[in-house]
């Protein structure tokens, strides 16, 4: 087949045509364009070509923007795969440390007074880790929790978070479950676009795609939940990244806050 005289010029000229277009594009895009762009930005030819190729950071068309701005993070937590894996493993250290928590949060993570203290049993370890960290750093203010969290090391916070997450949640008596109102259910499932409220379930739902630190809200006391929403609303609590919860709570009415707290405190799933 390769000896076909009809075919030889095809092989040659097809390759020449395709490779010349390629070479032209490379000369233009890799050399000419960066040099011209770099000249406008005050960069030398070598630097602009390296930038165009992605070998050095920055755009060949602009000098690197220099900023003096210092970040002021809402929280000092940073997620990593190792941290997430560690939070999945309860340990003996966690069980020892948990003794300090039992007076309020109960031996099995079931709060002694759900009106005031949240249940920790079955809570997401990631959420617990973030809150302990925030109590420690001062991102979340609490006269009770701050002195307890401050002496804890990173490993200890991980251990105690993983410890409580492993307990089963409190069981709810089904007979006492009131039917939630349609408006509250809609807020939970669909949010309210006219007030820029995302569905609560977008982050707190069972199959949510929200941030990993979003806590489980079910099986918590209604009073505790509504107190937190009011604290977000007033700005007293401010450890939510990107002000997500403050933005939502700010536009919730008081009756909606009570309704949502009631909904989650009496719901099994989500």
């Amino acid at each position: 087949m390769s000896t076909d005289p009809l075919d030889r010029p095809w092989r040659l000229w097809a390759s020449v045509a395709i490779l010349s277009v390629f070479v032209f594009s490379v000369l233009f895009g890799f050399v000419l364009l960066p040099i011209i762009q770099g000249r406008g930005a005050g960069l030398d030819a070598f630097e602009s070509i390296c930038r165009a190729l992605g070998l050095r950071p920055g755009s060949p068309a602009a000098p690197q923007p220099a900023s003096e701005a210092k970040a002021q993070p809402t929280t000092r937590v940073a997620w990593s795969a190792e941290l997430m894996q560690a939070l999945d493993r309860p340990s003996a250290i966690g069980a020892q440390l948990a003794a300090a928590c039992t007076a309020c949060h109960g031996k099995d993570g079931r709060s002694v007074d759900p009106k005031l203290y949240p249940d920790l049993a079955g809570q997401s370890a990631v959420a617990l880790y973030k809150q302990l960290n925030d109590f420690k750093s001062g991102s979340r203010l609490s006269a009770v929790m701050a002195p307890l969290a401050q002496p804890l090391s990173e490993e200890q916070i991980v251990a105690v978070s993983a410890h409580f997450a492993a307990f089963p949640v409190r069981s709810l008596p089904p007979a006492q479950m009131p039917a939630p109102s349609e408006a509250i259910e809609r807020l939970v499932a669909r949010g309210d676009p006219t007030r820029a409220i995302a569905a609560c379930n977008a982050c707190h739902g069972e199959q949510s795609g929200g941030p990993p630190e979003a806590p489980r809200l079910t099986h918590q006391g209604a009073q505790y939940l509504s107190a937190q929403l009011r604290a977000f609303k007033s700005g007293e609590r401010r450890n939510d990244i990107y002000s997500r919860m403050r933005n939502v709570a700010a536009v919730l009415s008081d009756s909606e806050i009570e309704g949502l707290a009631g909904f989650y405190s009496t719901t099994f799933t989500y």
Partner: protein
Amino acid sequence: MTHARRLALAHFWIGFIAFAIALVLGVWQMWVRSPLPAPFLTASTYFSSVTAHGTAMAYVLTTFTVMGFGYYVAETALARALPAPRWAWTGFWLALAGTLMAVVTIFSGRAAVLFTFYPPLIASVFYYIGLVLVVAGSWIWCVLMIVAMGQWKGANPGRPVPLAMFATVANAVMWLWTTVGVTLELLFQVIPAALGLKAQIDVGLSRTLFSWTLHAVVYFWLIPSYIAFYTMVPQAAGGRLYSDTMGRLTFVLFLIYSLPVGLHHLLMDPHQSNAFKFLQVALTALVSVPTLLTVFTIGASLEIAGRLRGGRGLFGWIGALPWERPLVLATGLAFLMLAFGGFGGLVNMSYGMNAMVHNTSWVTAHFHLIFGGTVVIMYFAIAYTLWPSLTGRAAPSLAAQRLQLWLWFIGMLVMTLPWHYLGLLGQWRRVATFNYADPIIAAWGPWVIVSLVGGLILLVSGLLFVRNLLQFAIGRASHVPAEVYATAVHPPLRVPAALNGFRLWNVLVLVLMLLAYGYPLAQFFIIDPPGALVHRVDQRR
């Protein structure tokens, strides 16, 4: 009925059933995005629905249609029995099982990642495995197409492969190249993450691998339409194909310039450099060559037909064409939509303009117009053309077929033109609901409703299409079906090996891919950037 015909029918029906279901979901999605109150709306139902719609339209309808059409062409254009029909059925059942697996996973709410996956979002592993099975089924098809052509060439040394089969094999070869990118992404990144074996995923790498597939996959969907343009339309119009060589060149150029161009989908992504983006955009621009070759060749072929039918003057031949024949009508409508869609595509591939429209509805509208319009209307016409020979019955009503094609064309323009405009106004894509209480967004409302009306027309047209195919059951039995393939003005007696096979072009694709994608992929292993945390959508931590 021969094996190939049974295979073709089975494939077409699976594709069209998926199409009909996805169409209903699509209309519901337009409704949700409009200011009118829609039922069943939650964010998760919306994104599950979008995932199902995209998966069914982009992977199921297309792959099954391409495979079914290929089996038909292999048997009829080559005039020989299909090799290894048992393998063909294996491919069919594999792809069907994969489809069902993916669909069940989506509807159980465990795969709302949209059909382009968007890592680090990770769905249930069954969604991805389902799609891998669909692709595996299509690989069997690719091999069978290549083998069928090889066997024919062995039996007919020195003779040119019929253009329809040459183009089908071009598509099969291209599909094998195309699926490498997404397969690497799924097997080495996404599926291990879905199985919990990996906690991090390098999103830059996965997006780059997907871009390898993302543009060529569009040509995989498009090529059946081009096969119909070149090999069936001139015949249906009562003329001849202007040039067989132009056809071969077109399909070869599609093979070459569909692959090393995918970075133009990543123009706004920070992990690829300007220079490689420029290179691949420059190569993208070359796809205008086969497109213009086609417009010219098919225009010339139709002119031959029009003049043979007595058309006179500069444009008189256009009116003389047999527009009452569905395939001719569909071609005219497809070309009009190709003109609009091609213009939108030029905007998308231009860096500066892309920056303005990238995350807006413009892009969604563009691919609905070019794929849903140009490509799918030709799928309808292909089905109408092949059904008499597949079922042995004549169509009871060509008027119903024409009505369906017109409705599809009108619906597509009514839906996509306002949708493009909304994109220019800033309406973002991948969003379930809008705050129509905002005065700026409220001004979008009427256009979204117009778009929804277009969607409803499309739904009517789609259901009419299925009805038209079912109507064949009551059509009268037709004796020997008419010849579907066109003869060229100068039928090729001998063609150079370069235009009778793919060896040379495969080498050139390999070279171009190494040059255009080599460093953009290698950089992820040289720099070793941090991965993103896997974000499961099928369960909470």
